[in-house]
C-alpha cells in the first residue's frame, strides 16, 4: 500500500523505532512500560503487513498485554522513585541517553544509504504454508520445549516467593 511516495511499511517502521526510543528515554518507569506495549503494538502491525497474522495475534495479546501487566505490577510493587526523585535524577540519566537518538539516526541513514543486497536463499525443502501443520506436526518438539520452559518458569517463581515468605 502506498501513501503518496511512502510505503506504509516505512511509516510503521518509523513509529516502531520511535516508540522503542521513547520507551528507553521515558522519564518514569510506568511510561517506559506503556512505551514497550506501544512498541509491541507497532511490531504487531508490521507482522500483520508481512502476512504473519497468527504470530501478530500472539505478539499483541502476550507481549503487548501480559508482559505489560507483569511490568506494571512489578513497578507498582517495587515503589519506584517519586516525581521529585525522578526530576533529581533526570539530568544525570538524560546525559547518558542524549546521544542515543543521534546514534540511531546516523546508523539508520548509514545503513539505508549503504543498501547491501542480501539475497536470501529459498530453501528447496518441502514447503508447508499452513502454520498449524508446522507447529503441531513438524515441530512438535518445540511444543515440548515450550511446556518444559513454562513449567520451569512456574517452579522458579514459586521457589523465589517461597524463599521470600520463609525469611
Amino acid at each position, binding site marked *: 500500500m502506498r501513501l503518496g511516495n511512502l*510505503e506504509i511499511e516505512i511509516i510503521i517502521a518509523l513509529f516502531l523505532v520511535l516508540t522503542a526510543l521513547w520507551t528507553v528515554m521515558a522519564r518514569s518507569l510506568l511510561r517506559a512500560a506503556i512505551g514497550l506495549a506501544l512498541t509491541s503494538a507497532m511490531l504487531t502491525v508490521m507482522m500483520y503487513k508481512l502476512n504473519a497474522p497468527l504470530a501478530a495475534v500472539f505478539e499483541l495479546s502476550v507481549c503487548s498485554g501480559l508482559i505489560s501487566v507483569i511490568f506494571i505490577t512489578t513497578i507498582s510493587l517495587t515503589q519506584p522513585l517519586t516525581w521529585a526523585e525522578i526530576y533529581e535524577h533526570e539530568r544525570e540519566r538524560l546525559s547518558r*541517553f542524549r546521544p542515543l537518538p543521534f546514534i540511531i539516526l546516523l546508523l539508520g541513514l548509514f545503513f539505508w544509504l549503504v543498501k547491501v543486497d542480501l539475497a536470501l536463499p529459498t530453501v528447496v525443502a518441502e514447503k508447508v504454508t499452513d502454520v498449524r501443520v508446522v507447529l503441531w506436526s513438524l515441530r512438535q518438539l518445540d511444543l515440548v520445549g515450550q511446556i518444559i520452559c513454562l513449567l520451569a518458569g512456574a517452579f522458579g517463581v514459586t521457589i523465589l516467593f517461597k524463599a521470600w515468605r520463609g525469611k
Partner: protein
Amino acid sequence: MSFWFFCVCVIMLAVIGVYCLLYTYSLMRALIGIEILIKAVTLLIIAVGYFSQHLALAQSLVITLIVMEVVIMVVAAGIVLGLHHYQKDLDIRKLRELKG
C-alpha cells in the same frame, strides 16, 4: 520493501536495546532493554520467513520465542521483586552482595 529495509530496522532496534542495557542503572530498565532486543529478533525472524517464503515456519518459531520471552520476563520480574525485598533498591550500583 526490500529485505535490507527490515535489516536496518532490526539493527536500529538492537542498538536501542543494547544501549539501554549498557547505560542504565535500573534493573527494570535493563529488562526493558532485553525486551526491545527480543523485539528486534522477532522482527528479523518474521522478515526472513517472509522473504525466504517460509512464513509458516517463521511464525511457528516466533510463537515459541514469545512463550520463552514471557517465561524469562516472569522469572526476571520475580528476581527483581526479591532483590527489592532485600535491598529496598533497584539500582545495580548498590547491589554489591555478590561482588567477588
